[in-house]
């Protein structure tokens, strides 16, 4: 019974972590049809922003939930102005440019923070269920993921800003004709996406030792979750995170964490093979 509880918590935690990891990329990809391969590095910078802020004496929750998203969002804004805005509509070129950015940020972080592992301890202590130790921080991550999805839904569905964003996502020309500059919408979207990446990196930072190359661990997972999720932002994110989180946790418990990861990746390959036209067909509907 205790084991079942632990497994269920772990399952939800895996799904929530995937939601967090992918949210930033999903916003940028869903709204702008841009694949930001520097996403992992944005998360890494969110982690470093948190750790630096905590070391300077900030409260850990303020550092994670406010400082890190702001810092990374601003970095994203600079990146958008300098590089990405020249490449709109050129999907593969953006992928390559952001890959270059990812290498650039890894190098930068190595020069600033050094090639060593840093970290902070988890701010919420664990507790025991029967014979098992449960990490209390997992509940925090699950909570944040749920709040994040709710907030995204509320903003997109309920506010005027969300309406404009969804309109620009479907028909950018029409939005422009109605007086909303797509350029500014894209800029704001990229800021939000980067801020979400920063938030995710900050929240996951206490769980992992942070090195400048930490981003690489996230990008592939985020990439496949978003691509497999398909066109609709929130539903797609939930469905694919749920599926992949479930599969990877089952294999993690049954065999080993490495096999869990491999199972996740294999599931992605199979899913994309089974739904190529279906996902593609949905995928570019807003654009064409």
């Amino acid at each position: 019974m205790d084991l079942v509880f632990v497994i269920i918590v772990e399952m939800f935690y895996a799904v929530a972590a995937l939601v967090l990891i992918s949210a930033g990329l999903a916003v940028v990809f869903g709204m702008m049809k841009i694949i930001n391969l520097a996403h992992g590095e944005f998360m890494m910078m969110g982690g470093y922003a948190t750790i630096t802020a905590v070391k300077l004496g900030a409260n850990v929750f303020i550092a994670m939930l406010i400082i890190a998203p702001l810092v990374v969002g601003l970095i994203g804004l600079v990146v958008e102005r300098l590089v990405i805005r020249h490449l709109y509509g050129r999907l593969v070129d953006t992928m390559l440019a952001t890959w270059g950015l990812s290498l650039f940020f890894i190098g930068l972080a190595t020069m600033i923070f050094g090639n060593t592992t840093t970290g902070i301890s988890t701010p919420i202590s664990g507790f025991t269920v029967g014979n098992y130790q449960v990490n209390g921080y997992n509940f925090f991550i699950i909570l944040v993921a749920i709040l994040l999805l709710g907030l995204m839904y509320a903003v997109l569905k309920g506010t005027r800003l969300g309406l404009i964003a969804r309109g620009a996502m479907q028909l950018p020309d029409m939005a422009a004709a109605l007086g909303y500059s797509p350029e500014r919408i894209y800029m704001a979207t990229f800021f939000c996406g980067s801020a979400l990446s920063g938030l995710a990196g900050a929240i996951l930072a206490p769980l992992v030792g942070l090195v400048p190359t930490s981003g690489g661990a996230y990008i592939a997972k985020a990439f496949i979750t978003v691509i497999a999720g398909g066109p609709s932002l929130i539903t797609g994110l939930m469905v694919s995170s749920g599926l992949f989180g479930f599969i990877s946790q089952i294999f993690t418990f049954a065999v080993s964490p490495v096999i869990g990861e491999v199972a996740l990746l294999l599931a992605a390959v199979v899913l994309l093979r089974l739904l190529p036209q279906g996902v593609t067909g949905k995928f570019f509907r807003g654009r064409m």
Partner: protein
Amino acid sequence: MASFWAKEAPATLLVAALLIWVMPMMIGTYTLTVLVIYGMLGFSLGLIWGFGGILCFGQAAFFGLGAYTYAIAAINIGDSTLPMLMAVLVPAVFAALLGAMMFYGRLTDVYLGVITLVVTLILFKFINSTAGPDYVVGKARLGGFNGIPGFQTLNVPGRPDDYILGDPFYYFCAVLLLIVYLLVSWLLKSSFGRMAIGIRENETRVALMGYDVRARKTVLFSIGAAIAGLAGALFANWGEIVTPNLFSLGQSAEIIIWCIVGGLGTRVGPIVGAAGLGYLKFLLGQQSMVDNTLLTGIILVLFVLFLPKGLVPAVVSLWRISFGQRRRIHKHGARRIRSGSMGNG
């Protein structure tokens, strides 16, 4: 076809022979060997991406597979001839299976990128976790993140004690690259090659004309993987150790950067890009002021923004503008190759 063997091949041979002879006077053969190997690896992606329009994010998977196949086979067999052949065949067969799965499922650009990326990651994670003593192929332990050291390196066929090392190994690699280059040039001149370019330019049209696009793409993908596998086997011989890093995303990224910097849609471009950036990295590795990765990143971003066609096409068109007689400039540019199918389909 006839003009290829009559005109282009002798000219290529002459230039290559000159380069193979002159280069060791400027750069040590040890470094030069690895530049040649990188050139071959870049060439393999240049072929499938620049001429087939297949953007593979996992060319490193075939490179690593070639290197590991060679290492494992060499330990088990003890002579290098058969392992070399296997190192070409195994990645080719693997790529044929993977390619058939992708192309017969009509996956295109982004999805292709995701799947090749994911397959590379699976191999990387799997090999990385094989440190335990249970993971054995024949006599060879896979060794996980430690890699496999101490295998039989290249020897004269049939005489396992006559090693090909140092200068002879450099000439061996260079001549192999030349042979691969000539074979690929010939392939591109053949109807298969022209059809591959046709598929790159407009896949739907070629399919409607009644050609089997899927089979052709699969074969081309497999040829690219075979070349990458050969490069991997040579790299294993050069480094005398194989590690999971050969499969890493960083390695894949580097191959893509070589192609972009050198110039897509040209045969020389990826080789020049690979050797040039490889040498640059070697030079930068000797200083510690600026991080190497940072510079690689900046180079990639700047090229995508300002010179998306790459160096070789830029130099060629500059040459034409300055000296050439007014010939029709080829219309297919690197941008078209990279994002063409997005616009059409």
